[in-house]
């Protein structure tokens, strides 16, 4: 258990941490998040005494960390940094054994440890490689192993996956969550990425300006963000926030339209080429006139010169600026193929299809791809 009581820190006259009070129970995955400069990294570094608070106490399992030897303390707290920080002059095996060697484990124990550790991430063949011979993702896996090697009960991670590409980051997030649950570690993890926080955290500590704004589980935070800043960080994850809800956010704009004067045959060919069974019709002023369907054309088309008599005005239309939800409901309930979106001057702005609905659902569930 890590406990912060009235912790303050300032650099010169600038306060960095203001009266921090919170407790991190054993075995919990806690995320420190907030805008840059909010003091999250400073908070993290006070735990292994890389930074000394001006006042207040931090205790681990009830013991004030100031009473412990600084060096000894750090050897029993894992530490992973964003720049990875694997020592380039050491092999993977030597890097993993840095802390065990400092703790005077004998060689046999170190070798065994390296083996076990590498097996955990399926990288046994990398023991004798140097960091420069591996990809960023592989390096950070080893960075995490180095932190875990001496089986510290607490691991501190300072934006460990920030510099990795999205795919690798995702994979490592899964791995670290699994490891944490498997090994029952207390992890304190700094990030500015809310997706990462929501994915990993048992509990999120939201900081701003050196103060804690909200301490809550991801679910609680989503349901009840403490203020607008938290809300904006949660962004698209929160219901009813500023994110896309209007029809224009979801409509397809590259829509093929036919003029009223179009010949039936041409029109049918065009539809065949584009594999559609109905098409939007516009008049000479580019205003929306209605739609024609392939069925009607087949039925009555032979005697007609152009498509004008076949145009129906049955398709649902909405105006730009309306909520997309109604259109989605309409599409799903009626089984209609599309809803036509009109600009204020009656020209066609786009259409909403079931694909748009699917995209919106996907965004809701997984967020925008950034």
């Amino acid at each position, binding site marked *: 258990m890590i406990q912060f009581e009235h912790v303050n820190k300032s650099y010169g006259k600038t306060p960095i941490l203001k009266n921090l009070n919170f407790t991190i129970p054993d075995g919990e995955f806690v995320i420190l998040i907030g805008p840059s400069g909010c003091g999250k990294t400073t908070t993290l570094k006070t735990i292994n005494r890389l930074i000394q608070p001006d006042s207040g106490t931090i205790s681990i399992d009830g013991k004030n960390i100031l009473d412990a030897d600084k060096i000894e303390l*750090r050897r029993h707290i894992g530490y992973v940094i964003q*720049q990875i920080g694997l020592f*380039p*002059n050491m092999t993977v095996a030597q890097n993993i054994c840095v802390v065990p060697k400092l703790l005077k484990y004998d060689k046999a124990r170190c070798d065994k440890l390296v083996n076990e550790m590498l097996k955990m991430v399926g990288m046994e063949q990398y023991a004798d490689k*140097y960091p420069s*011979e591996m990809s960023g993702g592989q390096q950070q896996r080893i960075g995490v192993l180095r932190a875990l090697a001496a089986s510290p009960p607490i691991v*501190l991670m300072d934006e460990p996956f920030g510099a990795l590409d999205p795919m690798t980051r995702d994979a490592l997030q899964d791995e670290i969550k699994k490891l944490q649950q498997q090994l029952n570690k207390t992890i304190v993890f700094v990030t500015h990425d809310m997706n990462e926080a929501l994915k990993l955290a048992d509990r999120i500590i939201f900081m701003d300006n050196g103060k804690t704004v909200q301490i809550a589980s991801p679910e609680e935070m989503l349901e009840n963000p403490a203020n607008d800043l938290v809300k904006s960080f949660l962004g698209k994850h929160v219901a009813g926030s500023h994110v896309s809800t209007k029809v224009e956010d979801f409509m397809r704009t590259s829509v093929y339209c036919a003029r009223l004067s179009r010949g039936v045959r041409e029109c049918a060919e065009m539809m065949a080429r584009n594999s559609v069974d109905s098409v939007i019709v516009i008049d000479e002023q580019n205003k929306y006139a209605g739609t024609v369907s392939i069925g009607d054309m087949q039925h009555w088309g032979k005697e007609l010169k152009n498509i004008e008599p076949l145009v129906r005005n049955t398709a649902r239309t909405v105006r730009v600026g309306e909520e997309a939800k109604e259109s989605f409901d309409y599409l799903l309930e009626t089984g209609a193929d599309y809803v036509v979106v009109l600009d204020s001057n009656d020209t066609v702005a786009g259409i909403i299809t079931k694909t748009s609905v699917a995209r919106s659902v996907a965004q809701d569930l997984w967020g925008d791809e950034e």
Partner: protein
Amino acid sequence: MSELLQTYGTQLFRAIGIHTVYVAVSVFCGFILGVLMGIALSRIPKWSFIILPVVSIFQTIPGLVFIGILFLITGMTPATVVIALTVYAIFPVMKNTYTGILGVERSYVDAAQGCGMTSRQCLRHVELPLALPSIIAGLRMSAVYTVSWAVLAAMIGLGGLGDFIYQGTSSNNNTLILLGAIPAAILAIVIGALIDLLQKKVTPRGLRRAVER
């Protein structure tokens, strides 16, 4: 040529020997002192902006003047030459050690501290190994310079290849000058090459790769 060797042969080999000993001893001492001073300086980077320029002033004192003054104090012993050369050998090593250590990326030092290394362990396991290429480059520089500075030993009558050069210049004998100058140049090249070899040997594989890229 053979005539030349007959006349000067033994004298030449003796001179090369003495010259090499001067260089070896003073570069060795200078290297040790330079590394130690560089490390010390890297622990107090705030002061180095005063200390480094002051030390570099010593560097600008002409060798002739320095040996001359030292001669007044320590007399005509090989120690005079070795002390003077050592002082000159220190600076490149010290400066490269210092910049090498400070050039080690902050994240490695952070990681080392976070792992619970004492500052001495960090120095030994992280900072020095990473600064090694720079330190060796300093050694190379000081060794090559020392070969040419050692010529000054002859000025106070202490032998080495300088003997030939002084004799040559004073008696207007070009052959003698070349007899001193050419072996000195070759010596510098050979020592430089030896240190390059050493450089390759001592650079950890992980770093070598990084450098090659």
